C-alpha cells in the first residue's frame, strides 16, 4: 500500500470505489450510497463503516449470487466476495467510528492486487515486497488439511473465549459444495482468500524480515525509510488519539519513540493459531503459536510485549552474525 503511495500511484484520500468499482452480485451499484465515500485512509484506520466480518461467509455469498440469478457454489472466490461486500449496508458513516475490521484489510489487499495488475494480493506481495527482500516463506494460507504443504505444522482448535467454548471443534466446510465436517481452521473459514487479513502463512524468520525493515533506519530494497516513517508516524498519531483502540496502518499498537524510532505491534488470532509481530526501537520479534495461546497476565492475551523474552534478548551478546543469510535472505 505504501509502496504505491511512495510512487504516487495511490493517495490516502483515494476512494475504494474509484479503484475497485465494485458491483453487487446482480451487477448494480453498492446498496449503500455511503460506500462510494470510503477512502483508503478509512480502511487503514478501521474507520470504513463497512460490516467488519459478514463478508467471510461463503454460504451467504453463494446465496446472494444465486438470488441474483447466477449459478454459484462453494468455494467462493475473491471476486464473488468483493461483490457480496458491495451488497452489504454500511454499519457506520465512513470515517466516523473505529471498529477493527477484517473486511477493511481484506479490501486493502484487493486494492493492492488491482493496482499491481495481479489476480490475488499474494501475487502482488510476492513481486513487490517479498522478492525484493528475499522473502520466500510467506505464502497464501491453505484451507484444507489435505492440501497443506508437506512438513506444515499441525494446528488444533482451542478455546479462545466464550464465543468458541469448545476445544477441537469441527464445523461444516466452506471449501466444497457438500460441506462435510472439517476440523475448525481447516476449511470452515475462508483463510486463503483473505490475503489482506488473516490469509497468509509465514515462517517466523521471514516475518522477522518485515520487522527488520521497520526497525532499519535506512532505505531498504522495498521501501524508502521516509515512507515507513510517514506510515509509522500516522499509526502512532492515531494510537495516541483518545478513543482509538487500534493504531491502524497494519498495526494494533504504535508509538513514536522519537529520534526516528518507533514501537509497534500486530497480533493475529484464529481458531487454531496465534502470532505476534513487535518492534521497539532497535529490537523486534516474531512469535507464532500452533494453537491460540493465551499468555497469563498479559493483555491482550495473544499479542504480548513479552518483556521477559526481550530482556533476555537485550542482555545477550549475539556477536556480529546476521542469520538472515542462513535463511536465504541477504543482509540488509
Amino acid at each position: 500500500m505504501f509502496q504505491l503511495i511512495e510512487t504516487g500511484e495511490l493517495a490516502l484520500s483515494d476512494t475504494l470505489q474509484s479503484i475497485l468499482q465494485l458491483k453487487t452480485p446482480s451487477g448494480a451499484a453498492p446498496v449503500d450510497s455511503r460506500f462510494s465515500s470510503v477512502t483508503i485512509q478509512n480502511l487503514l484506520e478501521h474507520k470504513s463503516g463497512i460490516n467488519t466480518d459478514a463478508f467471510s461467509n461463503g454460504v451467504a455469498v453463494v446465496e446472494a449470487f444465486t438470488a441474483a440469478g447466477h449459478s454459484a457454489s462453494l468455494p467462493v472466490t475473491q471476486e464473488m466476495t468483493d461483490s457480496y461486500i458491495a451488497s452489504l449496508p454500511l454499519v457506520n458513516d465512513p470515517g466516523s467510528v473505529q471498529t477493527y475490521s477484517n473486511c477493511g484489510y481484506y479490501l486493502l489487499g484487493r486494492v493492492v492486487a488491482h493496482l499491481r495488475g495481479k489476480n490475488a494480493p499474494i501475487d502482488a506481495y510476492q513481486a513487490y515486497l517479498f522478492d525484493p527482500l528475499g522473502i520466500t516463506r510467506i505464502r497464501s494460507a491453505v484451507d484444507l488439511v489435505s492440501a497443506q504443504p508437506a512438513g506444515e505444522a499441525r494446528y488444533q482448535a482451542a478455546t479462545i473465549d466464550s464465543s468458541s467454548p469448545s476445544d477441537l471443534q469441527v464445523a461444516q466446510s466452506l471449501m466444497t459444495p457438500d460441506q462435510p465436517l472439517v476440523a475448525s481452521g481447516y476449511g470452515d473459514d475462508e483463510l486463503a482468500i483473505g490475503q489482506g487479513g488473516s490469509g497468509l502463512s509465514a515462517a517466523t524468520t521471514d516475518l522477522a524480515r518485515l520487522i527488520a525493515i521497520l526497525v532499519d533506519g535506512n532505505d531498504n530494497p522495498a521501501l524508502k525509510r521516509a515512507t515507513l516513517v510517514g506510515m509509522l508516524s500516522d499509526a502512532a498519531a492515531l494510537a495516541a488519539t483518545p478513543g482509538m483502540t487500534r493504531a491502524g496502518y497494519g498495526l494494533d499498537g504504535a508509538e513514536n519513540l522519537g529520534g526516528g524510532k518507533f514501537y509497534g505491534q500486530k497480533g493475529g488470532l484464529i481458531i487454531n493459531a496465534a502470532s505476534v509481530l513487535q518492534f521497539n526501537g532497535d529490537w523486534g520479534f516474531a512469535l507464532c503459536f500452533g494453537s491460540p495461546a493465551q499468555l497469563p497476565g498479559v493483555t491482550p492475551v495473544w499479542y504480548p510485549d513479552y518483556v521477559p523474552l526481550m530482556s533476555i534478548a537485550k542482555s545477550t551478546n549475539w556477536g556480529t552474525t546476521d542469520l538472515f543469510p542462513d535463511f536465504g535472505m541477504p543482509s540488509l
Partner: protein
Amino acid sequence: MADFVAWHGKTLDQHEALRNEWGAQGYRFLSLSVYGPVTAPIYAAVMIRRPIVVVQRDWPSMTAAQWQQTFNEQAAQGFGPVILAAAGSASDPLFAAVFQAQDPIPLTRHGLTSGNVTDSGTIQGMNNNAKSQGLKLHWAASYGSAADPRFAAIWMPNTRTVLWNNDGLVDDAGTYQARFNAETSAWCRPAFVTLDGDNCYMSLFVADEIGPWVARHNMTPDDYQAEFNTWTAKSYFPICVQAAGSSATSARFAALFVQSEDIVGKQFNAIGPVANSAIDALVLQTMQAQPVVRHASLAIVNGTKLV
C-alpha cells in the same frame, strides 16, 4: 500384549459370574456396558490384569435412585466412579458402575439433557463447567432416545491438560463417521465412544497420542466379534466396548482397540541455528503454562540483523 478378558451378550447372572471368576484372579474392569431391556439387562465388559491390582467395587444393575445412593455411600468411603453405564428410557433408566478409591471424588452427574452451554442441567453445561475447573470428560453414558436423550458422565482432573471435545452427543452413524473423519484429520483420536438405543453416538475426542489404535462403530454383535478377533490377533485389545439396543442380537456396538493404555508423553525439543538456554527455558515455561500449544517458533531482530 495386555492380559485381558472380554465378553458381550451376557445376562446379569452370567456377567456377575464372569466378574467373580476373573476378578478373583486380579482382573479389573477396563470397560463396561449395559444394554437391552432394563428388566433383563445385557452386559459387555473388558477386564484387564495390570501389574498393580487396585480395589474395585462394581454395581451392575441400579435404578437412578439406587445409583445416587450408591454414589453417595461410596464417596463417603473415598470411592469414586471410574466407569458408568446406562440403558433404558429417560424416565426408567438402569445404571451400572465401577468404583475405585479416589481423591478427589470425580465430578459425576446423571439425568443430563442436551441443551444450552450455560445450563448446568445439560451435558454441554456440565462439560463447560468441568473444563473451567480443569477437568476432562473421563467416561459417559448415553441413554433415553434420540428424541429424548439423557446423559451421565464422570469428569476427572485433566492432569495432562489435553484438549478434548464432546460435541458429538446424539450423532447418527453417518454423522459420527463424518465427525470422526474431521477430528482424526486434525491429529485427534477417539478416547471414548458410546451409543444409545437409537444407534446415536456420543463421542470424546482428545489431542494426545496413545500409539496405534483402531475404532469401529455401527457393528452387529457378529461384526464386533469379527473385529475383536481381527485386532486382538494383532496385539490390540479393546479399551472401550459399548453397546445399545433392545436385545443381545439386535444391539449395535462401538469399540476402540489399542496396543497400550499409556499416553505418549510430551517432549520439549528446541531447534534453531543459535542455542540460547535462557530463551529456550522461557519458551518452555510459556508453553507449559499454555499446554494446548504444541509448537511455537520465535525470531528476534536487532537492528537489521536476525539474531
